[in-house]
């Protein structure tokens, strides 16, 4: 018996060792043979020295399955990657924040800021042959407002749109309820891009499976959980200033493969089964940089960084000192460096650096200081017990930390590190990971800290998180439960202020107030990262860091 046991153990050990060696070889072989080749990490593109090669099929691995390809009904960033290839918008926003023509050639804004008159391009046709004109634009925006469409996300984007008037075939006037500086920028977003009215009427709620737009690529097929195929639109000649190629794209096809498992996705890019793959985690970014067959495309997203919102409607976090204790006890630098290995930028403000109005002066402002954090909690009357936990009136100081994703971008690991860091000042952190944040956070408000981020092109995005009138579905407060009349008025003024310099100042005030009052703890700016084979050239990004394939080609 004894002999049998031990030989079994030896076999297990040997087999394990064999597997480890075999799989280890996979990594080291590639790594060592290519360590001299420095991979190029480009913000926008690789050296575009070579002449674009026409034709070919770009396979692109997506991390999750899109919900629908109907832009007006989609709520997922991953869907936008495909939606963007099929649909165009009225205007384009450049990374510098400026608004440029796209399907609209020019526009004027009325004196009161409540109506926009657009002159449309006259040479644009939808993929199904439907002419693009003022009627089509009106149909689209009215469709978004129609509750039948169930367009919750795009409806929020075109707010405060009220009605459209067709002035002549290629001129349209859009009327707003109230003036809004964010309106034009939001029109540039893919979720309010223009669909073919003929197709929308024909397919109804199945438009998402049969999308028809005016974009550089035409929809071919969608095999659910497997792939989405789009092909070149040969008639295309109305590309936005975001790309160089104004004509039809070089690629014959883009095939979006849906590959949810990270290791499989990266493995497929490494083995050449797909030419490009999205959402590459930090530890792989470092390894892929050394692989001379591969390259990385990266672009920081805009809007709100990944932010920890401290719930002020719960004690003791309604006290500034308690929040400041968290702010000084949590070492964000250490977290970002440890988890993202220098591949993500640390966030300093409620906005990301690329967003209009970002206040650079906040950078380097908050420094970790355990002594100060301890002193602040002492002042609040929390006494350190023998077990290392602070108590007041017999109640332990605990913090309920809610996260809504199964470790997306290592967000659960952030929670774990913060748990350790706050232990040092005598705060117990209970981490709750739940998919159902809608109930836990938005309906029941059962959180002390909740982390979230939002991609957006305008600082108006601050409203739904920090304006005291912003309520969520259940009619409850904004995420941090923050009420500050000054901040409210700055956000309100920011929406209508025409002078960009003054507007910038208003948003700088908002950001400073939020950080000074320790309303939130900003953590990291998410870089959208694509790993691609070296032959893939010129994938570009729009201002929200969504990929554009107009200029992309595959080197022969």
């Amino acid at each position: 018996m004894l002999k049998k046991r031990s030989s079994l153990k030896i076999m297990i050990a040997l087999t394990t060792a064999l597997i480890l060696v075999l799989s280890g070889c996979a990594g080291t072989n590639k790594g060592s043979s290519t360590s001299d080749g420095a991979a190029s990490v480009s913000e926008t593109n690789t050296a575009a020295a070579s002449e674009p090669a026409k034709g070919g099929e770009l396979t692109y691995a997506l991390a999750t399955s899109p919900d629908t390809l109907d832009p007006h009904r989609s709520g997922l960033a991953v869907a936008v990657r495909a939606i963007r290839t099929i649909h165009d918008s009225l205007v384009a926003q450049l990374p510098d924040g400026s608004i440029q023509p796209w399907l609209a050639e020019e526009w004027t804004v009325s004196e009161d800021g409540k109506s926009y008159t657009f002159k449309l391009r006259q040479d644009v046709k939808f993929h199904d042959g439907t002419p693009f004109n003022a009627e089509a634009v009106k149909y689209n925006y009215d469709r978004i407002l129609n509750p039948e469409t169930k367009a919750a996300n795009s409806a929020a984007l075109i707010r405060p749109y009220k009605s459209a008037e067709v002035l002549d075939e290629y001129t349209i006037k859009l009327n707003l309820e109230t003036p809004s500086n964010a309106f034009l920028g939001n029109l540039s977003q893919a979720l309010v891009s223009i669909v073919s009215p003929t197709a929308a009427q024909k397919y109804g709620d199945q438009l998402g499976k049969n999308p028809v737009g005016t974009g550089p690529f035409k929809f071919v097929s969608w095999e659910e959980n497997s792939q989405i195929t789009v092909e070149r639109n040969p008639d295309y000649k109305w590309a936005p200033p975001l790309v160089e190629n104004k004509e039809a794209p070089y690629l014959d096809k883009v095939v979006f493969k849906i590959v949810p498992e990270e290791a499989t996705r990266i493995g497929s890019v490494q083995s050449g089964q797909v030419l490009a793959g999205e959402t590459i985690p930090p530890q792989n970014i470092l390894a892929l940089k050394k692989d001379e067959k591969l390259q990385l495309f990266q672009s920081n997203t805009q809007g709100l960084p990944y932010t920890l919102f401290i719930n002020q409607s719960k004690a003791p976090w309604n006290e500034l000192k308690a929040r400041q204790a968290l702010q000084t006890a949590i070492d964000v630098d250490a977290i970002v460096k440890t988890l993202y290995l220098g591949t993500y930028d640390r966030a300093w403000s409620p906005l990301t650096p690329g967003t209009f109005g970002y206040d650079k002066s906040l950078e380097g402002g908050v420094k970790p200081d355990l002594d100060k954090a301890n002193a602040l909690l002492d002042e609040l009357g929390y006494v350190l017990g023998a077990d290392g936990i602070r108590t007041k009136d017999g109640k332990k100081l605990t913090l309920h930390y809610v996260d809504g994703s199964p470790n997306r971008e290592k967000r659960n690991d952030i929670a774990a590190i913060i748990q350790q860091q706050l232990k040092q000042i005598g705060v117990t952190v209970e981490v709750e990971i739940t998919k159902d944040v809608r109930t836990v956070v938005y309906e029941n408000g059962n959180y002390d800290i909740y982390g979230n981020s939002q991609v957006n092109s305008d600082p108006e995005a601050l409203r739904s998180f920090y304006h005291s009138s912003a309520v969520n579905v259940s009619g409850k407060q904004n995420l941090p439960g923050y009420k500050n009349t000054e901040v409210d008025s700055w956000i309100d003024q920011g929406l209508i202020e025409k002078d960009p310099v003054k507007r910038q100042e208003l948003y700088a005030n908002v950001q400073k107030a939020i950080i000074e009052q320790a309303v939130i703890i900003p953590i990291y700016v998410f870089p959208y990262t694509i790993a691609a084979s070296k032959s893939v050239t010129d994938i570009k990004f729009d201002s929200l860091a969504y990929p554009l394939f107009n200029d992309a080609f595959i080197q022969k």
Partner: protein
Amino acid sequence: MLKTISIRLFTSLLVILGSLVLVFVIVYLLPGDPVMSMVDPSTVTPEVLASLRAQLGVDRPLYEQFGSYVSKVLQGDFGKSIVNDDPVLPKIIAHLPATLALTAASCLIAAVVGIWLGVLSAIHRDRWIDITARVVGLFGISMPTFWSGILLILLFSITLDWFPAMGSEGWKTLVLPSIGLGIVGAGFVVRLVRNSMLEVINEPFIVTLRAKGISEKLVMYRHALRNALIPALTMIGVLSGDLLAGTVVIETVFSRQGIGRVISDALMSKDLPVVQGVVFFSAIMYVIINLIVDLSYRIIDPRVRRSQ
């Protein structure tokens, strides 16, 4: 014979109906609101929510929802996904073949590898073949499928480039996932076949057969294995259900199409009609497999045939 089958069919119907009721109640009792998963909670207005709820009928009491659902199912209408309005039935039918192929292939691997190793291991008890077989069995049982799946990809896809790491087109994409899943089943079957073979080998009738001078091979494969197969078959029947459930993980790892992924996506977004549809079909498949297993006893074991 006819009576047995009709009783089996009747109980099978009960199982299917029972699973429907159970899923309905469980999903209903889960916290959260399916409508909320359709919209962005930070921007949607209460009016939009209320109208969506009314449209979907989720504001009605449970028994009403269940009643109308069952009556629709009987007419072949499984409803529409609340996430993207896809009709449920075509969605399941489109995804079913990939999952069936995967389950069948991994069942086959589990059965062939499991029985073969099990027999070898019993015949060569305590020798190196036996030890290897048992190590393989232990490995199969104890390795989580997502882990073995990734190892398979690392080795056979990235390093050796023999099989694709992802997709569900063609037989080549079936190889790695069905090995990943089949090895789990094989692990259980090896142990079982080994044990029952060892039991059978020492029975008097084997001794008699040997005494008659029948060749050892014939004794083992014709007579002993036949007796050891019955428990193995039951095991494979039960395993097929496990394997069906295992497709949820394996299909995600290998980016395959299939109802495993359909249901995991649907559960994440509380897409009630889709969850119910998939459970309904899984129940039917499970029942069919068990029926086949039951009937095949009669072919293998004359005692079962005679006792009825």
